[in-house]
């Protein structure tokens, strides 16, 4: 079976700002904690882009693991004791479209900044 890629555009809501490595680490930790190392290895999860200023990012995974990636994002509840919530805003099939959507959301940051 061909492993097609999916790009999840997500939004971070937290009283503090976090670096892309901290966010990626939290997502991977949650995926491993709930679904195991196998899922972490096979899901192909990777943070493609993350804008610290707006809190919007793009996460890549394989289509068969889309629900796991989405659940892992939703299950992140804190980073170093600071409460955080990650919301999946949109799922696309191409990186180009994901980046385009991310930038269009950046333009409307007044609407999505919580």
């Amino acid at each position, binding site marked *: 079976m061909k492993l097609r890629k999916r790009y999840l555009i997500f939004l971070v*809501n*937290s009283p503090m700002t976090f670096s892309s490595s901290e966010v990626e680490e939290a997502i991977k930790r949650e995926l491993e*904690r*709930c*679904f195991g190392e196998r899922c972490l290895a096979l899901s192909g999860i990777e943070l493609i882009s993350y804008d610290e200023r707006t809190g919007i990012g793009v996460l890549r995974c394989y289509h068969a693991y889309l*629900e*796991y990636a*989405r*659940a892992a*994002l*939703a*299950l992140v*509840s804190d980073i170093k004791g600071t*409460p*955080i*919530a990650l*919301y*999946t*805003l949109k799922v696309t099939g191409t990186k180009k479209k994901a980046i385009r959507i991310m930038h269009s959301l950046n333009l409307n940051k007044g*609407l*999505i900044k*919580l």
Partner: protein
Amino acid sequence: MLKGFADLQIYTLESGGKNTADEYAYLLSLLGFRYVSFVCFNRVIENRFKEYRRRVEDYGLEYISRVDLEIKSLSQAKGFLRKYRKSVDLVVARPRNINAARFSARDGRIDMIFFDGRSPKFDTIQAKLMGVNNKVLEIAISEILTAEKRVPVIRKLNRTLTIALKYDVKIVLSSGAHNIYEIRTPRDMVSIIKTLLNIEYESGLEMMRENPFSVILRSREKRNKEFIMPGLKVIGKAKPYEAEKKILDFLS
């Protein structure tokens, strides 16, 4: 016609939460919810409900009034129900012992049952009773999010859901949020229960869309003045019946 996602269990500052109704309403409107309900323990405060409704409607959401009754004894429960049934959309029972749980499953005035940390275990007898009496079971996603050790929580929820679905008990999935960081988008919540609790995606969506609405509609029907009992309602009023003279003669 009711349409859209509902989050029926949110704790505001007044009910032990950390955020105001305003903050929740703003976030929920952005995340695609349409209906919202805030927990109110053991009493109905009309002014607070009006305030919630006003705040929620400012963000284009619809407010569903709800009262959570912590039931310890049957006499206390009956008192609560007599007092509050007609004034709120949803009456949710939080049983504190097994008798209270069975009573909640049988009584027609209770719409939903929520088994929290202080409730007895959800068992097959309870599920059978709830299935027969069309009672809805509420589960909160925050139990998973906030748990330090997720294993016992997932095990408990898995067991509850398996038994409930076996006996056709309808389930409503709520956030159970105590602060804005415990709220998730509807589809994210469905993804969590799909992956962790093995629930079909469509069933998960039903738990957040169709099931809450069926409870709300049924409850509103009960509050209607024309409602007498399930399946029986007043459809119109006729003139007082005057029997003809010959009938009266015959009867006499």
